[in-house]
């Protein structure tokens, strides 16, 4: 199975390369800092400690992925040296670590650094230094601005777009909606909220209650009680996994039964729905772009089977229901493909050029119908989602794949 997938990917990349790179340039080897005949250095930071440490799993998946790549011979014969550091979700810390990676270790690029505030902290620095800050692990809408920040690119559908889609779905499907919103009080929460308001448009008065919480708060009980008391019949849950699960559970405990919308950030069966209680989670609606690891319908698809085999080999004992592993694998595959496309021209310029040159690329583990599309003016790799409803023990996709217009 693995060879099959690799064969496909290899073919696709060969095609892409033929159509893209100027043949004269391809003939000679060119390197920036961090690349050589034998090695490519890729840097990463993530929250292995601190309030967001549940996302540390992503970093562990990435590390395992590159181990697997090196085991299979590396990328175009070069081993990947993946340097991952713990930033504790602290913006002051990531500046220091990034400088360590860029100036001391001289990495070719940073990859999938996590957190909106953290990436903001190094945004300007990376662009001044002209070092790629690729496929960052945050869905804020500000990562797709190639004019001002040509060295930074996002990965997942941005939160703003997702918020618009929920709002439209509520207006079209819920009769006389009275909406209660629970929002994490930071960049990420606000991006969703702004998109949601934009989607509601003139109906923004339908939001009867909007409460916030801090990522460090131990519970969100009082916020959920306030939402219930407001008489809301729709609940939009903008929260990271821990708080999202607490909110779903609390709503059920106090007998509040609204139509629930849950942001994709927390649409993980393993780390949210199960802790919240499967009974309490029935009927919750979310938007997805990756194959959920608990959804039985993917079991016979090639890319999913390859992922399961990979998990068994490289991350034995890890919880396969944790969607962070799917995310990590998918985003690492995209990085892998980008480096492959660079061929022997491993310069920072070429890395960005290749990253901005995907047409309908079928990335493993994306939902059918969703592909990677980028261009020098479009720095949003994934811009489509499909809605799903929680049913039984997993997500049940419904409706069509929805795309946002490029912004």
């Amino acid at each position, binding site marked *: 199975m693995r060879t099959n997938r690799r064969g496909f990917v290899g073919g696709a990349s060969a095609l892409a390369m033929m159509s893209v790179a100027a043949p004269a340039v391809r003939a000679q080897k060119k390197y920036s800092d961090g690349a050589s005949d034998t090695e490519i250095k890729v840097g990463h930071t993530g929250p*292995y*400690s*601190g*309030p967001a440490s549940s996302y540390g799993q992503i970093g562990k998946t990435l590390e395992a992925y590159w181990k697997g790549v090196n085991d299979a011979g590396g990328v175009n014969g070069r081993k990947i040296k993946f340097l991952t*550091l*713990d930033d*504790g*979700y*602290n*913006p*002051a*810390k990531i*500046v*220091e670590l990034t*400088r*360590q990676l860029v*100036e*001391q270790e001289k990495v070719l690029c940073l990859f999938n650094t996590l957190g909106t*505030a953290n990436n*903001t*902290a190094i*945004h*300007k*620095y990376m662009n001044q230094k002209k070092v790629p800050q690729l496929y960052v692990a945050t869905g804020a809408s500000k990562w797709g601005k190639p004019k001002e920040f040509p060295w930074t690119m996002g990965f997942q559908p941005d939160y703003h777009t997702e918020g618009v889609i929920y709002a439209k779905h509520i207006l079209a499907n819920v009769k006389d909606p009275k909406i209660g919103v629970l929002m994490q*009080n*930071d*960049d990420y929460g*606000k991006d969703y909220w702004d998109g949601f308001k934009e989607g509601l448009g003139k109906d923004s008065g339908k939001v009867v209650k909007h409460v916030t919480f*801090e990522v*460090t708060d131990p519970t969100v009980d009082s916020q959920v009680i306030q939402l219930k008391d407001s008489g809301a019949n729709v609940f939009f849950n903008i929260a990271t996994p821990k708080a999202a699960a607490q909110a779903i559970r609390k709503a059920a405990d106090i007998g509040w039964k609204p139509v629930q919308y849950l942001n994709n950030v927390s649409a993980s069966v393993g780390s949210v729905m199960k802790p919240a209680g499967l009974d309490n989670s029935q009927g919750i609606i979310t938007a997805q772009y990756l194959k959920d690891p608990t959804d039985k319908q993917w079991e016979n698809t090639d890319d999913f089977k390859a992922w399961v085999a990979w998990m068994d080999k490289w991350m034995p004992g890890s919880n396969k229901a944790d969607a962070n592993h799917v995310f990590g694998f998918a985003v690492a595959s995209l990085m892998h493909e980008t480096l492959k496309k660079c061929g022997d021209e491993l310069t920072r310029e070429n890395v960005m050029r290749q990253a901005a040159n995907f047409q309908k690329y079928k990335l493993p583990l994306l939902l059918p119908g969703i592909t990677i599309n980028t261009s020098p003016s479009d720095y949003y790799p994934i811009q489509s989602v499909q809605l799903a409803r929680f049913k039984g023990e997993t997500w049940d996709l419904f409706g069509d794949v929805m795309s946002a217009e490029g912004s």
Partner: protein
Amino acid sequence: MASASKKWVLGIVVLAFVVPLLQPVLPDVVSDYRLFLVSTMIIASIAVLGLNLLTGFNGQFSLGHGAFYAVGAYTAAVLMDQLNVPYWATIPAAAIVCFIVGYLFGLPALKLEGHYLALATFALALAVPQILKYKWLEGLTGGVQGIVLMKPEVPFGLPLTEDQWLYYFCLIVMVVLFWAAANMLNSRSGRAMMAIRDQYMAADTMGIDTALYKTVTFGISAAYTGIAGALSASAIAFVAPDSFNIFLSIKFLIGLVVGGIGSLTGSVIGGIFYVLVDNSAQALSQFVKNDLGLPFDLSAYTVFGVLLIAIIYLMPMGIAGGVAMAWRKMRSAR
């Protein structure tokens, strides 16, 4: 201060000024990144010194100096962002703002002793990140988005890199502040501060205005830590509420205890220690896991904790006190 130790201090300061000039000779050893790291150590030392003035020399506890650090950082950031004030002018501004905040906080703190005061300051440290996110202040503080700043530019066309200049700037501020602190502690006021720490009642009876000294010390302590915050805003070129969480206050306290309570040298050691451990904790925990083969996944804070316990056990007066004690023992043995 004895003249021998004065020579030592002078020597170290001169060395600190000369080392960056070696960059053309040893570009890998004296790299921009290393200088930046040393700058963060200098900033940490100033913050720890601020806490030391309060706790070590005046006997008042604070678990919340991260709050003053945040106020200093935000004062500098807002001034630079909104009013285009040059970075060097934000240092005195941050000092004044933090002095006032510290002084005002010191007033009710007069009524609180020991661990009650520690808890009140703890609450302050918890509150500040939330206040920074408050929606009425958002226009000023940028809310959760924080404020992106420019790095200090090299003045007068000096042939230095940004990081070298930042290093010199921090170093100059540090030398001035330590010199001022040493002078203050050697004066009547300094002796009054320490008298209050050692015997509150006796000091009061001697005619020292304890209430005034305690509140002013609180203000000065906050001003020192605030200056460190302002420097960090320039160094990092970004401020956000998440940078000033409760762990920051705890790190200052760790720096204080490890370096040496009631010692100026200890403040420097403490600052260096916490930056160093913070940076190498991950490498250390990986070393324990991979090379020693122990089956734990130690977090950075576990390493911090273990080191802290070990140092307190071995050197109850901190590293500065421990070294001084060992030095004295060696001399008397001879």
